[in-house]
């Protein structure tokens, strides 16, 4: 930290740096709203983002000398809208569509003051932007990148770092996503009726993907990347405010809050993963658990107890409510997995259910279920299948088989930290065999 006097000596340069930092922070706060409002105006995310960036450049040029305006968000919007009008006028002779929009902009600007124009309905604009960035016409990867960029205000570099992907790939993904939206003539809208359900599912999927990438990093050195979790939770909380009557939104928020409550406890002193039942529950974040339980209750009150996210949140809540691992209500967890399996049957759900059955009714019962999953083609390369099987075999005293399963699981995971954990468990099995 630099002292105040050093700062003073650095004079104008320091002032400019401070202003830049303030502008960066303001950008983070305002960019999504700004892009959303502009996207409604011009119809596409690409142009909206360019106009917003132009306004940012203008701020970077002017604010260091003029000072940050009292209502920076309104200033940015007014500047961007001004440019939008120019742009639309230039295009007017070419495209009739833009002509109509141009008239809308002029009417908008002439009629009422800019502040009101921004405060009004910005919620709907933001929701429209979320639906557009998460449109099912885009691939999952594209949706994730575009969402983090336009709604999270993250730079391409930050997204690339989060997903351990080269910067150029993310940049290309975003460019391509915008082009796809334009080519598919995706409108800026808040969908209603039956379409809304499908579109909302796509939005929730994107947020949960971002969360999970942070929560259990599929690749790389780190076991967790909390920044991605935080971003996903922030998006979830914003969405819950924008669409407060959608039970599954609250279900997803509940799931993320409760899972995030364990973030600190699931990483050991040297960065190694600590599994749920081995975690020190005193390190769980009670505040997040409380928020998660409230969100879950809201989902249930709205009639969404059996939604896929609410059900998973209910399972997470069973763990959160148990003061010790031994007090976990496993039969209830089995029942909840039954409901999940009925709703969206999948081999991964069956595997999780098998774990719960093993805890509720003994390892032999769990192993029967896991063994039935072994031939499943979609689980062939899934490291958690041998990991779970190894765990159950170990409890049954079949250390040799257990060790082989842990070794297989270790060879299948892409995450360095998780591989180390699985190798350690394999070694423990070998040691047990020696001792026994």
């Amino acid at each position, binding site marked *: 930290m630099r002292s105040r006097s050093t700062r003073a000596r650095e004079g104008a340069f320091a002032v400019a740096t401070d202003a830049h*930092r*303030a502008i*960066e*922070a*303001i950008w*983070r*706060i305002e960019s999504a709203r700004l892009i959303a409002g502009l996207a409604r105006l011009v119809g596409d995310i690409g142009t909206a983002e360019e106009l917003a960036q132009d306004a940012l450049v203008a701020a970077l040029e002017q604010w260091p000398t003029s000072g940050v305006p009292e209502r*920076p968000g309104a200033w940015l919007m007014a500047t961007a809208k001004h440019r939008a009008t120019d742009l639309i006028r230039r295009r007017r002779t070419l495209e009739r569509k833009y002509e109509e929009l141009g008239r809308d902009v002029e009417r908008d600007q002439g009629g009422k003051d800019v502040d009101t124009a921004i405060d009004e309905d910005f*919620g709907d604009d933001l929701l429209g932007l979320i639906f557009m960035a998460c449109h099912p016409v885009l691939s999952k990867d594209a949706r994730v990148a575009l969402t983090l960029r336009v709604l999270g205000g993250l730079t391409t570099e930050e997204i690339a770092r989060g997903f351990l992907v080269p910067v150029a790939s993310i940049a290309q993904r975003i460019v391509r996503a915008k082009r796809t939206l334009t080519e598919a003539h995706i409108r800026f809208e808040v969908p209603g009726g039956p379409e809304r359900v499908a579109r909302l599912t796509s939005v929730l999927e994107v947020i949960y993907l971002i969360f999970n990438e942070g929560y259990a990093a599929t690749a790389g050195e780190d076991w967790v990347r909390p920044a991605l979790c*935080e971003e996903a*939770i*922030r*998006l*979830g*909380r*914003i969405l819950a*405010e*924008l669409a407060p009557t959608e039970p599954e939104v609250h279900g997803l928020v509940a799931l993320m809050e409760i899972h995030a409550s364990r973030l*600190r406890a699931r990483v050991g002193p040297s960065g190694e993963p600590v599994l749920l039942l081995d975690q020190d529950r005193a*390190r769980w974040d009670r*505040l997040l658990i409380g*928020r998660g339980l409230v969100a879950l209750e809201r989902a249930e009150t709205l009639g969404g107890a059996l939604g896929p996210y609410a059900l998973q949140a209910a399972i997470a809540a069973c763990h959160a409510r148990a003061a010790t691992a031994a007090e976990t209500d496993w039969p209830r967890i089995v029942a909840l997995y039954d409901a999940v399996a009925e709703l969206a049957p999948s081999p991964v759900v069956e595997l999780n259910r098998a774990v719960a059955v093993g805890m509720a009714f003994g390892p032999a019962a769990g192993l029967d279920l896991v063994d039935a999953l072994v031939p499943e083609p979609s689980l062939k390369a899934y490291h958690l299948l041998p990991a779970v099987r190894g765990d159950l075999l170990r409890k049954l005293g079949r250390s040799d088989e257990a060790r082989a399963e842990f070794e297989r699981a270790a060879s299948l995971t892409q995450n360095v930290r998780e591989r180390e954990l699985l190798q350690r468990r394999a070694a423990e099995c070998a040691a047990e065999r020696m001792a026994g």
Partner: protein
Amino acid sequence: MRVLVLAKEGEQSKAATPPTPEAMAEYQKFNGELVKAGVVVAAGRLSPSSQGRRVQFDGKKRTVIDGPFAETKELVAGYWLWQVRSMDEAIEWLKRAPYDGGTFEIREVSQHEGA
């Protein structure tokens, strides 16, 4: 990152003057914006320090002191817990608060646990 925003009260513990309905509405509007932006994790207003207690530690000895705490220059009147991406972002949010007096303090909640 999580930050704790502390509202400091200048004078100790006189019965708090109830805010005007206009000020209340302004505050609620601002707080609503924070909630919509996914910033607020928790918030609370504290009762006057005349109703507070202090426990002083000295070796094995514990001394309980009743409020008000006359010697204290700055007392906490209320708090927010915010989830933000940087200290700068917290500052920019706080600057928008509809207050025309007083001091607010922003402190990062440490990622490390323990006392």
